[in-house]
């Protein structure tokens, strides 16, 4: 039986009967596998980029030295490791002294990423993979400027004199918190003891850097975590940067969504192709039954054929997916770091599993049902018509749910997509029915081709409604994906406009504000966007917090106006006309997550300790803060100043263009008491990630578009036999080729218009749900979608219909009539 099945399958293949089914299967496996491979690689690359930010795959931050036996455990696993000890100390040079943050690094530092060093302050520098040798020091540009030192000078750290061999421009694990804004220098860990700068009771931050395979890292983390004390905390690459984490999270959701859409589209294409194939096979089956094949033999025959088809599809798809993935990698080579040439197994399993499940759910049921075809059908002239089998629909639908969930691992994506698709399919079919009826009324005003075309549409009302629903579904998913991609990329780029602040200045006192602006202007730096924020450190003392977060000191500010990028989620911003009145009660605005974590209630009276003074304030509103905006953000904003204006300290943020960075050295010399936090490297990192993700999103979109087009083709092919027969009859009745072409064009363009119109409206609804629920973004309406989609649908489906039906016009009518 297997031999007969192989022979018949080969003959069907040769005759083109299996082509569309096979292409749909190959596309399902290829798209799912390559999207999954690519998503996996993007994730790996993101983690690698994050790893650059912490200089390791995993890091332990500790307030005490890392015990020796932990180090031996890591060595046994084996994992690469490095150590960093960071502390503050006064450093001395010939022409100055400065409190600096000293980072003593071991030989292997950094495990991930690179250090950039230069020969002058704020130089562009060059990348190196190691820290300073023993006897050397690498001061950063700010320290060099404040010490008025140059290359080859000597800096004293404690008891040790160290030679400046390089200027530290950037380092992978640059501190990003506002607390660590002192100028810094890097020395070799082996020199630490000789400096005698660290004594019992010194405040030192220890960092244990680890790199290696995930399994070994997880193993070590599992063993060490129970032994951690209060001052010890793990840090993973994604913990580092809120902006990067938010961007990554959205990108991952998009890739998962796109992959799930590819699965749904491939499933629909397979289902349509299988339906057409089974319809065309009905007569074959009837004949084979006449020749004596039993129903079970026929089931075995089709099962064998499908197994053969699946094996062949796998053989072709998996290497194709690998090739496609390599091609995608080539496209994004500047942005994505390929982590390894050995591909992970999971995407291939996912792809092969998707193909097999698609085949079992969409193709096999109609094939096995062929065994029920009555053999007496060979005696009848009529062509076979299959009714929609609800059982097959249920199997296919269950498979789609399983596949989408398997692929996305997200209940939200799966349920939103499935419920959305079902509702939309029903609405599409109903609306299509209505619009086809309306189109009927246009008929008297059209030419001959238009009249017959619209008459054909109305005659096959139910079939066309289904076709519109399928076209509409494919178009809707594609339009939605394009919209999601557009708003995501726009959102990412808006976060990081060209003039996003990349430099934060601290320890500015009231009287220094004007002189800072003057110094900046003298240096030719722009001061237009310079914004000053008063800051103070405060601790919430009443009510007492049992949450460790509530016991910490946090930065606060006071302002009459709601800070840029913040929004009030509950309560009201204070009346600005009253804020200066000293008799009005002090009010405080608190960031939403903090307020929820601490269980604070709006209207509650809270007591804060600010520089030893207790302040009682009414909790008057809750603020939502965009932490990914790279703008100064605060947990607490008060309605009026908490310290005397003359003793208040300010921070400022400003954007410094790359060509102006060399002016920072002289500026710091003029303003030696002001501290500076340079976040340019972090910003650049985020911008790289955004560029990389945008490209990834676009590449995936192209693949999903391929799946969508295949659905359109499968749907067109499903009705091509009937159209070919009708065209042959019309031609024998004297219709010209051009008349038949215009009939086809009217039919498909009308179907495309109706599908596009409905798809545009449905896409808007789906995108709104996704924006609101999945991406937690405000809903935006895209009116151009409503106008463009009907015409895009008309163009795409009209063109596809015309192209795939061109043989309907050119095939000799006699041959067509003989075949039916």
């Amino acid at each position, binding site marked *: 039986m297997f031999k*007969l099945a192989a*022979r018949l399958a080969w*003959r*069907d293949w*040769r*005759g*083109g*009967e299996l082509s569309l089914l096979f292409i749909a299967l190959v596309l399902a496996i290829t798209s799912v596998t390559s999207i999954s491979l690519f998503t996996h690689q993007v994730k790996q690359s993101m983690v690698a980029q994050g790893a650059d930010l912490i200089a390791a795959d995993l890091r332990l931050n500790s307030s005490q030295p890392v015990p020796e036996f932990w180090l031996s455990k890591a060595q046994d696993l084996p994992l690469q490791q490095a150590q960093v000890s960071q502390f503050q100390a006064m450093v001395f040079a010939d022409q100055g002294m400065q409190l600096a943050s000293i980072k003593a690094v071991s030989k292997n530092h950094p495990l991930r990423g690179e250090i950039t060093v230069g020969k002058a302050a704020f130089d562009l520098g060059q990348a190196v993979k190691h820290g300073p040798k023993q006897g050397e020091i690498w001061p950063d540009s700010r320290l060099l400027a404040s010490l008025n030192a140059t290359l080859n000078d000597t800096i004293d750290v404690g008891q040790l004199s160290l030679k400046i061999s390089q200027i530290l421009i950037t380092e992978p694990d640059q501190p990003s918190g506002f607390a660590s804004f002192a100028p810094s220098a890097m020395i070799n860990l082996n020199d630490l003891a000789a400096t005698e700068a660290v004594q019992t009771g010194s405040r030192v931050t220890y960092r244990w850097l680890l790199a290696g395979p995930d399994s070994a890292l997880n193993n070590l983390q599992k063993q060490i975590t129970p032994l951690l004390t209060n001052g010890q905390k793990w840090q993973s690459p994604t913990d580092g940067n809120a902006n990067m984490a938010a961007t990554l999270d959205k990108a991952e959701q998009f890739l998962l969504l796109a992959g799930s859409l590819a699965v749904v589209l491939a499933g629909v294409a397979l289902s349509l192709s299988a339906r057409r194939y089974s319809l065309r096979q009905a*007569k*074959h089956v009837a*004949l*084979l*039954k*006449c*020749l*004596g*094949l*039993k*129903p*079970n*033999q026929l089931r075995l025959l089709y099962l064998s054929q499908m197994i053969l088809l699946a094996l062949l599809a796998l053989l072709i798809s998996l290497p194709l997916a690998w090739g496609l993935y390599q091609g995608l990698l080539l496209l994004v080579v500047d942005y994505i770091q390929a982590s390894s040439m050995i591909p992970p197994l999971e995407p291939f399993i996912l792809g092969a599993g998707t193909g097999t499940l698609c085949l079992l759910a969409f193709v096999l049921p109609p094939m096995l049902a062929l065994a029920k075809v*009555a*053999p*007496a059908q*060979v*005696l009848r*002239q009529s062509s076979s018509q299959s009714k929609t089998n609800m059982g097959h629909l249920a199997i296919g639908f269950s498979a789609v749910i399983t596949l989408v969930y398997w692929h996305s691992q997200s209940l939200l994506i799966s349920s939103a997509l499935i419920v959305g698709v079902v509702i939309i399919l029903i609405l599409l079919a109903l609306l299509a029915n209505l619009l086809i009826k309306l189109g009927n009324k246009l008929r008297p005003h059209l030419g001959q081709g238009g009249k017959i075309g619209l008459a054909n549409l109305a005659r096959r009302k139910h079939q066309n409604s289904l076709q519109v629903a399928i076209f509409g579904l494919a178009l809707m998913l594609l339009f939605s994906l394009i919209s999601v991609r557009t708003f995501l990329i726009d959102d990412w780029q808006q976060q990081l406009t060209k003039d996003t602040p990349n430099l934060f200045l601290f320890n500015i006192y009231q009287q220094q504000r004007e002189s800072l602006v003057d110094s900046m202007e003298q240096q030719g730096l722009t001061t237009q966007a310079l914004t000053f924020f008063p800051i103070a450190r405060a601790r919430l003392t009443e009510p007492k917090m049992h949450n460790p977060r509530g016991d910490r000191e946090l930065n606060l500010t006071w302002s009459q106006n709601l800070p840029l990028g913040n929004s009030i989620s509950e309560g009201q911003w204070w009346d600005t006309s009253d804020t200066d009145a000293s008799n009005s009660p002090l009010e405080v605005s608190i960031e939403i997550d903090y307020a929820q974590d601490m269980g604070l209630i709006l209207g509650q009276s809270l007591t804060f300790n600010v520089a030893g003074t207790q302040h009682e304030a009414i909790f008057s509103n809750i603020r939502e803060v965009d932490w990914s905006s790279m703008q100064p953000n605060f947990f607490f904003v008060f309605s009026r100043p908490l310290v005397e204006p003359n003793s208040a300290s300010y921070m400022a943020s400003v954007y410094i263009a790359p060509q102006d960075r060399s002016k920072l050295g002289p500026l710091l010399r003029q303003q030696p008491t002001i501290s500076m936090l340079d976040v340019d490297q972090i910003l650049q990192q985020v911008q790289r990630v955004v560029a990389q993700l945008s490209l990834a999103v676009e590449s995936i979109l192209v693949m999903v578009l391929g799946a969508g087009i295949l659905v359109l083709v499968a749907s067109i092919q499903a009705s091509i036999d009937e159209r070919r027969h009708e065209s042959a009859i019309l031609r024998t009745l004297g219709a010209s080729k051009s008349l038949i072409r215009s009939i086809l064009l009217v039919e498909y363009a009308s179907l495309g218009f109706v599908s596009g119109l409905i798809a545009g409206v449905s896409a808007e609804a789906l995108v709104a749900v996704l924006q609101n629920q999945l991406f937690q973004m405000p809903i935006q309406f895209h009116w151009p979608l409503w106008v463009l989609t009907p015409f895009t649908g008309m163009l795409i489906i009209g063109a596809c219909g015309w192209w795939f039906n061109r043989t309907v016009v050119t095939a000799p009518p006699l*041959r067509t009539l*003989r*075949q039916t």
Partner: protein
Amino acid sequence: MSYSTPFLAAHNVSQVVANPQATQTNDLHILQDVNFTIEAGQSVAIVGASGSGKTTLLGMMAGLDSPSHGQLFLAHKDLTQLGEEGRAELRKHHVSFIFQNFQLLPSLTALENIMLPLEVKGSSDASALAHQYLNHVGLSERGHHYPNQLSGGEQQRVAIARAFAAQAPILFADEPTGNLDSETGHHIIELLFELNQQHQTTLVLVTHDLQLAQRCQRRLSLTAGKLTELTNV
């Protein structure tokens, strides 16, 4: 070998279907109490006007369909006692067909179409036998052509070759010249009877062509679902 059951027969066979017109309540009687017996090696024509139920009766005799009432015998087996699997097994070894619309598979060449019943039977020399029958019907040069590259007459010749290559003792032919012009139809009939003569096959032929029916040893007429034997045509 003697059998207690007839070779090919119908006993009080009726076929009733529900009336497709919703307004009509009475069922349609396609066949009413049909009775006949056909001996091995006989050639029998079933004649009647279009819609008289000829093709339905042929389908039932070949075990392609089941009657509403009555008994049918094929190759000494009671078809009404057999399930679908049993009827398929019976067809594989005892029955072959020629159809009005040829029923050649469009994705198979002429030669492959002839090989098909032999492959279904598991024959080891399907290709050689198919070539031999292709020669018999005078199409040895057209073996690699697809059905749509053949004329109607050629397609029916391939169908005849396929029917005889199966080497089944009973041949059912449904309007074998119905889709052909009279001259081609004449050639096809000559070929059909020539091969039938050579193979000593039992031939049951459905036709509305009285001239063709006269070539058969017996003629049965079906009118309004009732079968009668014609003695003189």
